[in-house]
């Protein structure tokens, strides 16, 4: 085949040969769908693009291949890496990207004159599909490459992407799909996700390569009982940075990355060039670090998820993970980053941030050695995403309901969707779906002729487009230096910004800055290197451990398999065994102690965060009924921590294995867990508009809270689709009745209740957990009254 020559030449001149899976990809390029499973660094991305390079070698008019990745940074990286073979083989192929960072002018030009290869994200693809000229843009499209599909398949972003692919398939019937995935437990689940149903999606396996070289970093200083940032390990980390060419230092949250980076610089006596990269930084700052990294100017980068996934950063030879890796799968994928030579093992060091994490890290290593990956995939597509997709399709023009339903049924996660469920969503988008038909005049969609639907008012498309996407960010405010044309630094959450007063300091992009003022939607700051920073509370990634890992840890603790653990951690666990007891499989450990004027209960279920959250709801409901004034709870995969104004006494009456569902029904309805689930689903489905700059009203007409909509629906329209979706979402992501019932049946009355005068070693890390759920009960009123009296007295005001 003549077309292969330039590519083959490119490989030959470099003394390279194709990996077997790369030539397999070329041979099977005509299949309608194909999934490649390969380790990071296995030339996976090139394998995905090879058929495109071959097919375009003699020129192709218009868009040939759409490449979709979950991260903007990945698109930048791929473009750089594709440019070399294309230029050196002199191929007539243009590669461009289109993301949220792409300018308006460039987007317009791309619509008129598309490149052969377009790199984009699921959100940008949804936007492109919503334009009336989508049919023309995508008419000649030949291939779609979905990179890191294992990461997308876990999320609503993936569900949205697969819906968009079904649309593309209609616009370009000859379209072929390729999915690129890291190693996963069950590839057939991902193949089902990617396939155009009912057609199958064959799977291609690359050589998995040598096992990764992972160990726990030994430090002279012992980690704290309950720290989160790994600050104690800085000297040892710097030592490693010195010894390696390039080191990536990963954190689980942005806030931790910021603090660590700050302290790293304070200790960096040799002034080693070290940068920071995370999603809350301004685009300029991110690009600068990426370029410095590619140019080999940095010895290390402190990063979070924004740099995650299979980015090829050249000469990285060490990955350091600060804080326990919450999912074994992510750990292995992150480590794939280092040492990208295909046949050399990748090297990584884990740095536990506290003593519990020492145990977690060792359990994770055991799991990696046992080849046990984790992560469950959902196969029932969420309906809030479907509602958004219907609105998105309507923006592009009128559609036929039957045709759209057939299209959606070809999507893996929606392949079992019933017509009635689809019609509910269509009705929601068209009329709001209320029992009270109030919007006849203002329906969003109109049925023009039987079965044909379209926007009542085409101007509504603008609003729909601005609300596309499935990532729910808390509202963010831009941060920049005060003064004319002050440099942008990044973003902080509005909630955090509202707690700042003039003079407060916080960390942003590794610098300490001082809050000066708020101008419109921008926070103005000045540099203040001399002060101690307050901590910026980014939400960033919400990590959860897998249930697998939790259970592995429970066994480790109970069997006292501490040989692999360092001395300080053994001592810490032995202290736990002495002052309280170690958790045992088949039994339930419950600790009770006062702290800080509150009474605390910790229940160690090792049953996953959702089951623990449900358990906490059950216990706090009982507490409220018995007048024990619960205030809130927080859960992780190992345990739940509950606090209130009164001690609980005997825990047994609160742990009844039967009737959990019925008991929780009403209590759950009013709980913050459900209200959060409602808000997220309502934003995605289009019931609540996202706040975006320019639109957000300042001052008096401020938007009212989504809780009001939730309460109103419950009172007047309890069967409404949004409430049903909220319940489905809660069961999916927050509440797990089944697992809790199983736990309580297994445990029976084998409950070890320990009352103590202070917090125990094992409970200490619970106080660092994020995602506190407040209880809006009587206790809140009591605290409010006490606080009000105190404030009035301090201000010298009397109650009259």
């Amino acid at each position, binding site marked *: 085949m003549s077309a292969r020559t330039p590519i083959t030449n490119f490989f030959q001149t470099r003394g390279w040969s194709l990996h077997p899976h790369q030539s397999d990809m070329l041979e099977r390029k005509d299949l309608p769908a194909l999934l490649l499973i390969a380790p990071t660094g296995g030339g996976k991305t090139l394998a995905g693009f090879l058929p495109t390079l071959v097919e375009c070698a003699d020129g192709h008019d218009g868009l040939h291949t759409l490449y979709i990745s979950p991260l903007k940074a990945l698109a930048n990286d791929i473009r750089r890496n594709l440019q070399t073979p294309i230029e050196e083989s002199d191929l007539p192929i243009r590669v461009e990207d289109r993301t949220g960072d792409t300018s308006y002018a460039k987007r317009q030009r791309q619509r008129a004159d598309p490149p052969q290869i377009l790199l984009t994200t699921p959100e940008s693809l949804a936007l492109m599909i919503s334009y009336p000229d989508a049919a023309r843009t995508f008419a000649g499209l030949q291939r779609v490459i979905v990179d890191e599909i294992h990461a997308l398949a876990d999320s609503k972003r993936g569900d949205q992407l697969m819906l968009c692919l079904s649309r593309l398939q209609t616009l370009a019937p000859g379209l072929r799909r390729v999915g690129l995935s890291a190693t996963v437990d069950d590839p057939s689940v991902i193949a089902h996700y990617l396939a155009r149903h009912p057609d199958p999606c064959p799977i291609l396996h690359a050589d998995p390569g040598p096992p990764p070289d992972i160990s726990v970093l030994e430090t002279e200083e012992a980690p704290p009982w309950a720290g989160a940032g790994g600050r104690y390990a800085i000297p040892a980390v710097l030592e490693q940075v010195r010894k390696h060419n390039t080191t990536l230092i990963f954190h689980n949250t942005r806030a931790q990355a910021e603090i660590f980076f700050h302290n790293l610089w304070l200790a960096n006596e040799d002034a080693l060039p070290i940068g920071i990269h995370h999603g809350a930084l301004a685009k300029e700052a991110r690009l600068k670090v990426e370029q410095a990294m590619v140019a080999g100017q940095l010895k290390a980068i402190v990063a979070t998820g924004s740099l995650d996934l299979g980015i090829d950063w050249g000469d990285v030879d060490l990955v350091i993970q600060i804080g326990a890796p919450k999912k074994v799968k992510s750990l292995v994928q992150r480590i794939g980053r280092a040492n990208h030579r295909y046949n050399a093992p990748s090297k990584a060091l884990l740095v536990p941030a506290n003593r519990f994490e020492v145990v977690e890290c060792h359990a994770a290593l055991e799991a990696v050695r046992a080849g046990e990956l984790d992560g469950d995939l959902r196969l029932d597509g969420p309906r809030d995403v479907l509602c958004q997709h219907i609105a998105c399709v309507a923006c592009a023009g009128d559609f036929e309901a039957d045709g759209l339903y057939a299209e959606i049924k070809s999507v893996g996660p929606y392949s079992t969707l019933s017509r009635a469920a689809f019609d509910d969503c269509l009705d929601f988008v068209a*009329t*709001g779906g*209320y029992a*009270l038909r*109030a*919007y006849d*005049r*203002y*329906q*969003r969609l109109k049925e023009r002729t039987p079965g044909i639907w379209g926007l009542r*008012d085409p*101007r*509504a498309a603008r*609003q729909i487009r601005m609300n596309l996407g499935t990532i729910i960010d808390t509202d963010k405010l831009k941060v920049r230096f005060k003064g004319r044309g002050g440099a942008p630094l990044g973003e902080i959450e509005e909630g955090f910004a*509202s707690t700042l007063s003039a003079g407060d300091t916080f960390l942003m992009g590794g610098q300490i800055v001082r809050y000066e003022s708020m101008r419109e939607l921008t926070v103005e700051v000045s540099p203040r290197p001399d002060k101690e920073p307050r901590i910026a509370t980014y939400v960033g990634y919400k990590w959860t451990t897998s249930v697998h890992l939790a259970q592995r840890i429970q066994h480790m603790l109970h069997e006292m398999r501490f040989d692999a653990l360092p001395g300080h951690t053994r001592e810490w666990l032995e202290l736990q065994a002495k002052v309280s007891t170690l958790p045992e499989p088949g039994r339930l450990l419950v600790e009770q102690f006062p702290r800080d004027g509150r009474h605390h209960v910790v229940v160690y279920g090792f049953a996953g965060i959702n089951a623990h959250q449900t358990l906490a709801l059950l216990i706090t409901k009982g507490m409220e009924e018995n007048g024990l004034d619960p*205030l*809130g709870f927080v859960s992780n995969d190992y345990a739940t921590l509950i606090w209130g104004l009164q001690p609980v006494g005997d825990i047994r009456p609160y742990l009844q294995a039967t009737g959990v569902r019925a008991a929780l029904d009403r209590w759950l309805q009013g709980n913050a867990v459900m209200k959060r689930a409602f808000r997220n689903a309502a934003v995605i489905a*289009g*019931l*609540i*508009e996202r706040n975006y700059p320019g639109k957000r009203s300042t*001052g*008096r*007409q*401020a*938007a*009212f*809270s989504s809780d*009001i*909509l939730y309460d*109103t*629906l419950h*009172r*007047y*329209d309890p069967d*409404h689709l949004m409430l049903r979706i909220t319940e489905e979402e809660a069961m999916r992501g927050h509440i797990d009745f089944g697992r809790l019932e199983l736990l309580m049946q297994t445990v029976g009355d084998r409950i070890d209740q320990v009352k103590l005068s202070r917090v125990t070693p094992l409970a200490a890390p619970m106080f660092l957990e994020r995602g*506190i759920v*407040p209880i809006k009960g009587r206790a*809140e*009123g009591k*605290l*409010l*009254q006490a*606080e*009000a009296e105190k*404030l*009035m007295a*301090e*201000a010298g*005001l009397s*109650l*009259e």
Partner: protein
Amino acid sequence: MRNVHSFSFAGARLTARPSGALHWGDRNLLVVSDLHLGKSERIARRNGPLLPPYEVQDTLRQLQKDILETGAAHVVCLGDSFDDLAAAQALGEDHRAWILRLMTGRRWTWITGNHDPGAPGLPGDTVDVLTLDALTFCHIATDLDRAEVSGHYHPKAAIQLRGRAISRPCFLRDSRRLILPAYGTYTGGLRTQDRALADLMGAGARAILAGQPMVEIPMPR
């Protein structure tokens, strides 16, 4: 005990209610502000989201409850009773009948707001300003040297309890001004720290939090 909060303002004995209504016992007068009836209709009309269309009935249900509990002889709506003029005109027949029922047997005053010019097509007096004894009722607070009861700003106050923040609609009062929270179901709030409110209220101003329990605190600034 009933959970309300009583205080004196310009010589009048007033009671703030958890719903955000104000009751003047001596005149048996009930005051509510910023009902914003028809908000969901207005948002839909402007191509916004189709919100649950139940806020008119929810707001009227609450108003009926306050009227029944106080047995008010005179109701004053302090402006922005409707989200806009078109929303007032689009009021459903059943809701109109409900309002007429509430109006029966009592005096009713619509103060004009910046969103609405009163209540077109409904009985009752429509005025810009109402003065009763020492108190002046108007929509937006003025600089005039008089004891004013007004609305417009939708004030809300936040209070930090250890580990959590509670934010609620609130009444604001100093020696000359009393500002009511928004009464309508679909209304947001303006934080008391906002310059518009901080500049308006004098030193020693207080905030009375609506909801349960009602508490009074120094106005957060």
